[in-house]
């Protein structure tokens, strides 16, 4: 499978339907790279003309802004908007809710106006339009799964249903955790916490959330954010539950079910 960059498209004098914004985790983190590849595979199989920015992509500035470093954020935003506007980007899909939030809500004021969509919404649309076809022997059918709401997708942007609908379209048995949807508990990574030690307390936030997921006794935990994925995986490993429960991104689940 060849992944085209915007530069490749430009060289051919063409434009893709959508830009796949990979994000830093999706580009560099070994676990998150699998999510990236899974999503690229789906796009490929669904016949979507997409491109990535490749080496021209840079951090959106989200963690810097949330940590309080507005200068760093503005520098990154300026740079990214120059690149995106240079390629006349109209539509962006991303597998990271943090990138999604920044691109969708925070870049427009700075001159970067795009139609930004999170990959779970995109997948739900592709399924509804029949562009994604599942194999007849749907191995996910009846498997129990609990979906962990990402704060930057849920509360931050009111997206609760799309990821759940994708799981339902696979006839999976969705089990909700005690705290879900608008009440969902954070994994502990947001607000640039991913990049520092947790403050002192009685328990790690990801352990608190992993315990809730384990309580559902679901075989799988679905995530829609590379950072949530890391936090939940670590939490479940810490409880020695990784044999019973695996954490997968919605894109990975779909990729495994696709024709």
């Amino acid at each position, binding site marked *: 499978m060849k992944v085209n960059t915007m530069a490749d498209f430009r060289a051919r004098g063409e434009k893709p339907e959508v830009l796949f914004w990979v994000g830093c985790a999706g580009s560099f983190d070994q676990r998150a790279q699998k999510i990236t590849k899974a999503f690229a595979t789906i796009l490929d199989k669904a016949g979507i003309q997409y491109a990535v920015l490749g080496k021209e992509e840079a951090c959106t500035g989200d963690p810097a802004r949330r940590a309080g470093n507005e200068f760093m954020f503005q520098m990154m935003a300026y740079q990214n908007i120059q690149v995106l506007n240079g390629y006349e980007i109209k539509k962006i899909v991303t597998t990271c809710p943090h990138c999604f939030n920044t691109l969708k809500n925070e870049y427009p004021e700075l001159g970067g106006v795009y139609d930004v969509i999170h990959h779970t919404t995109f997948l739900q649309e592709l399924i509804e339009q029949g562009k994604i076809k599942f194999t007849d022997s749907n191995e996910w059918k009846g498997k129990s799964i609990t979906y962990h709401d990402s704060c930057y997708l849920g*509360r931050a942007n009111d997206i609760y249903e799309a990821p759940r609908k994708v799981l339902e379209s696979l006839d999976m048995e969705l089990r909700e955790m005690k705290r879900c949807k608008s009440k969902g508990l954070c994994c502990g990574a947001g607000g640039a916490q991913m990049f520092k030690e947790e403050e002192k307390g009685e328990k790690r936030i990801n352990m608190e959330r992993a315990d809730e997921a384990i309580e559902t006794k679901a075989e799988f935990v679905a995530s829609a954010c590379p950072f949530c994925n890391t936090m939940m995986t670590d939490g479940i490993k810490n409880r020695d539950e990784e044999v019973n429960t695996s954490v997968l991104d919605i894109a990975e689940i779909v990729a495994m079910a696709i024709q």
Partner: protein
Amino acid sequence: MALIAQLAFSLITGIALFFFGKKLMNIRRNIFLGKSLEIKDAPAKRWSNVLILALGQKKMFHNPLVAILHLFVYVGFVIINIELLEIIIDGIAGTHRIFKPYLGDYYDFLINSFEILALLVLIACVIFFTRRNIVNIKRLRSKDLDGWPKSDANAILIIEVVLMGLFLTMNTTDEEADYLISNLLKPIFSGLDSSTLSAIEHTAWWLHILGIYAFMNYLPYSKHLHIVLAFPNAYYAPLTPKGQMHNMVSIQNEVLYAMQPELAPTTSTAPDKFGARDVMDLSWKNLMDAYSCTECGRCSAACPANNTGKLLSPRKIMMATRDRLEEVGKNLDSNKKFVEDGKSLLHDYISVEELRACTTCNACVEECPVSISPLDIIIELRRSLVMEESNAPVEWNGMFSNIENNFAPWKFSPDDRDAWTKEA
């Protein structure tokens, strides 16, 4: 004698209203010590928020039992106060139930409704008092409430019970009155002669109205102020997605002028401060949030940091902001202008450790029944910490320099950003 009572009543009414008005103006001034922030968009949506969130108390209904009890207290409080109009006119004119001859049956219907509501308020307040002091509810037992806040909450409930009690006593001992609830209470006073009953009625009447005036003047010092500010706070609540942070236009421009110097104006004025170190650096909406806070703790009960034993409590952020603002207000009152007192919201009232614990998950914002954003204040203080004091954990400084040099928060070579495509 009657004339003296009328004069005394009029005077007390005037004084009570004067001091209440004065304190409200004082609070208004304090709120506008905050930075200007223009909110004029989407009036229709904003009014609908007032109806749904403030008047309709939508978020309270996450817990229907508590919501209904709260609704009794709130509806009771507002509707029974219609009766105040008659009480005040009676007091000034020296009349007794002045509206009764004009309203006829409708008057009886009104008083019957007030009595039922008064009983419901009384019951709800007793239940709330029990919940607060006997039932072990974590958010109501938190150390956030140690001292004055706990006494404040109990004082409100006790005052409400006493006021409702006086209202019902006043009707029960009124021999001409024939109303639903007070009729049930009449046996308590059976055997007393008319003059004793009349004396009790008058005493209850006076204590009731004096109690109302006292409560009215207590309101602005109490968490109970939410009964007023919940409405404007809902109106001015942000309509943007919760994930969207306030843009700092000054920094946006600074970056723009650094990149494109030809756009820079010849007389550029950089702001004197980045982020918020003290209450005056916050927006007036942040400050109104602080005065609107009911200290209910739903925010802290939902906060992942607070849940796992970290120092951060969003409720405490709001209480600290109000405390500091009151202190600044007093400073202004006694010195005419603010005299530097060597203190600030950041550090003296809210510690670095608290701010560092926030995951910006928006759970506190989502929960708040009166449209407060503790997160907004946390972020503004973080901005001051990082940009004014260069005060960040070592790992964050590493993350900043990685973003600057490698365009990613980790130390990977930007050339490897597309390495995954080769394995795809």
